[in-house]
């Protein structure tokens, strides 16, 4: 094979401020838009918490993290979206099972917007009236997802994979559960989880690195937020086996859509979830990718009419690969996938498929950013790349975009 040549990959520069805030910058030369995301390591999977030393454990209503995400946009000086708009920027936010992120996209006025972002995340003001009204909006948001077969199928798959792990809970909660959200609940979780040590600021754009780090340090110091009291989030014991192997959801779709999940065991990967994720992505690509034997067989025999869609999802205490396809012949699809995965488990992955998978992944890595340095939070890169002023809510199917459709 002849040599290949490419420019070096882009890297993030990461620094930790004295407050504990992690700041990461990815410089994108020549780009007009500038993004910043301030994200907390707090997501919809936190449903109980206890301040260190306390006996009492608080149960949080399902959907609390997402509710908080909505309400932080209302501040003393008015609606924060409006403030961003006045600066010619757009703002948005998202809640996933393990993080909540607040972001803006600006052309001019980047540093003024950054100031607003710190205000937004650090200075909560909740009122009874505001919280009550938000329940109507979030209820409509939940109703909207009920009409979305992609979202509902994916959520159902998670509840079938996981018996106890709260990552399977719908980030928005239910119309019923959010009734229990009060300003007190929101203040408590904000205090517990929104301290600098639990946050990461990620900036992407054509900006001078020193300016970014200096201004971030200044804003962080000005906010003067202290470390929170230590909080314990109860951990769950999740069995290695799936919750239920098969399930059905009845919705108005033209033909069945089949979701499959392969549950990994965190005991098998311990602390190296990132490495495991990489291995899982090569495996999934080799087994299910467009040039795989399986995909080709299913496509040419008419079982599927679009390439298989698959993804791997990893965090410290869970990991799984998901696969989805629309088909009129779900049984054939299921048995072919089973056959291919079982064969791979027995005799290993085809060496050519393995090499091709690596090539594809090298290509796609080069096209995106390199996240090697950003370790504390799973960086919401897909959100950033997929986000535009009129971007779709469910950019990736993993994150639950809160504010905007």
């Amino acid at each position, binding site marked *: *094979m*002849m*040599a*290949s*040549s*490419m*420019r070096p990959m*882009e890297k993030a520069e990461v620094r930790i401020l004295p407050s504990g805030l992690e700041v990461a910058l990815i410089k994108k*030369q*020549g780009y*007009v*838009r500038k993004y910043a995301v301030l994200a907390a390591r707090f997501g919809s999977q936190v449903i109980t918490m206890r301040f260190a030393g306390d006996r009492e454990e608080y149960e949080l209503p399902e959907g609390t993290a997402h509710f908080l995400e909505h309400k932080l946009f209302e501040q003393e000086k008015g*609606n924060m*979206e*409006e403030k961003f*708009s*006045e*600066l*010619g920027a*757009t703002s948005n936010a998202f809640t996933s099972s393990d993080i909540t992120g607040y972001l803006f*996209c600006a*052309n001019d006025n980047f540093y003024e917007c950054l100031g607003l972002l710190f205000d937004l995340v650090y200075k909560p003001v909740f009122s009874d009236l505001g919280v009550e009204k938000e329940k109507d*909006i*979030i209820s*409509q948001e939940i*109703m*909207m997802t*009920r*009409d*979305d*077969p992609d979202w509902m199928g994916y959520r159902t798959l998670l509840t079938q994979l996981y018996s106890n792990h709260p990552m399977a809970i719908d980030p928005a909660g239910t119309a019923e559960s959010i009734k229990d959200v009060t300003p007190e609940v929101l203040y408590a979780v904000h205090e517990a989880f929104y301290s600098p040590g639990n946050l990461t600021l990620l900036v992407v754009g054509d900006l001078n690195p020193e300016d970014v780090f200096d201004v971030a340090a200044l804003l962080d110091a000005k906010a003067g937020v202290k470390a929170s009291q230590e909080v314990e989030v109860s951990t769950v014991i999740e069995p290695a086996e799936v919750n239920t192997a098969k399930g059905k959801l009845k919705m*108005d*779709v*033209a*033909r069945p859509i089949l979701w499959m999940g392969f549950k990994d065991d965190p005991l098998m990967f311990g602390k190296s979830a990132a490495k495991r994720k990489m291995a899982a992505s090569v495996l999934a690509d080799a087994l299910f*990718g*467009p*040039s795989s*034997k399986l995909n*080709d067989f299913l*496509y*040419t025999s*008419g079982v599927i*009419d*679009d390439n298989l869609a698959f993804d791997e999802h990893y965090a410290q205490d869970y990991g799984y690969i998901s696969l989805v396809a*629309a088909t009129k012949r779900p049984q054939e699809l299921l048995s072919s996938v089973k056959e291919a995965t079982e064969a791979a488990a027995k005799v290993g992955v085809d060496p050519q498929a393995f090499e*091709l998978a690596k*090539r*594809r*992944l*090298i*290509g796609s890595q*080069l*096209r995106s950013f390199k996240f090697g340095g950003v370790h504390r939070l799973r960086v919401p890169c897909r959100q950033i790349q997929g986000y*535009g*002023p*009129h971007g779709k809510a469910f950019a990736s199917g993993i994150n639950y975009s809160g*504010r*905007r*459709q």
Partner: protein
Amino acid sequence: MHFFEDFKVRDGLSVHLWPTKKFRTVYLQIYLHSPLTDETATFLNLLPAVLTRGTKQFPETRLLNTRLDMLYGAGINSSFTRRGERGLVSLSANMADISCEGKVPLEHLCDLARSIMFEPALSSSGMLRSDFLSQEKAGILNDIASVKDDKDAWAEYRCMANMGKDEAFSVHPYGDEDLLKSIGPEPLTSWWANVLPDLPADIFAVGDFDVVEALELITRAFGGAIKGGSNPGPVATYKPAPEIPQVVEENADTVQAKLVMGWRSRTNWASPDYPAHVLANHIFGQYSQSKLFMNIREKEGLAYSVGSKIEPTKGLVYAFAGVDPKKVEKAVEVVIREHGALANGNITENELSDAKKSMEMGIRISADSPASLYSREMTGIVNGKRLTIEEAVRGIEACKAEEVAKAASEWKLDTIFKLMPNSYSKGGRG
């Protein structure tokens, strides 16, 4: 600034090149212009789907996919899209900016796109392969059936179809189901051999390349094969809205009611008053501080998803909202009220300046995405007026509140479309 350098290879074949180090991907995008009818949509949506299944050199789909993987996961996509009442075949090819096998990425992309369009896998009788054809037909029939799965998109399409019953813009880009079913290898091969090469083409390339070299690569790949001599017809026809707007209600298995309302105007991308219309739409419903968003969602709590958009070639404006079925009439009332407010000049200075800033950023950041840029350029090409980003921004900045109000007052409500849950009987209450 002009991002693209334009070259006219001949009548019916133009090339637009943007050499830049900004992206780590190299892009090749081919658009072919055609009239928009049920027949063109059906054939020209099917044809590229069959062509991307295999080439003379890589006659099986798996071989072609393996080739794409060898090129570090190169991507090939085809679709049939539209601008107003102009059909566009779109073929895009892209790959990571990695030179390999002694060729730069653009050369690989030209090789791929040319062989897909003009050197497809053929049967022994010289026809496009019938197995590829029947599989792709089945796939598109499934696509057609699945259009209804996305209820928001379905409601929008149904509003459009009701609004433009006798007009080309009601053609669905997937084409006509019965015609599709009837297509065999002969007519499709004939469209490939006789129609496709004659469609006028615009070819875009973006990436880290030398312009002279790129033009030569593209001309060598497509200069002989693309003749581009056919006439794609008008881009839009005008029809006035009815005196009294039609109200259409349909049912589907939904939880929410999906409301879509459609207006007609006489503007388009090339009109001097287009900036005023597009700004009016922005204030009306295009962004988070818009009248619809602030009133329907934030004040009245009627919907989570709400907004409006303007179609730049035929001058149609749509407003949409996903609402509680019991509150759909209220939502219609608020949408009409807010349109009235806009048309009457009830526009604050803040509304005007925030909308301008939001639009300005939207226009400027299209420079960060090759796909948005060439999509913008195509709108300009189809409408016969190219605008640089600066010109577009200046047009918006110059708009006065009175002009915005006047533009909105020229929108005539044509159709109120409600997609109601099945449990709601037509016209009655559930």
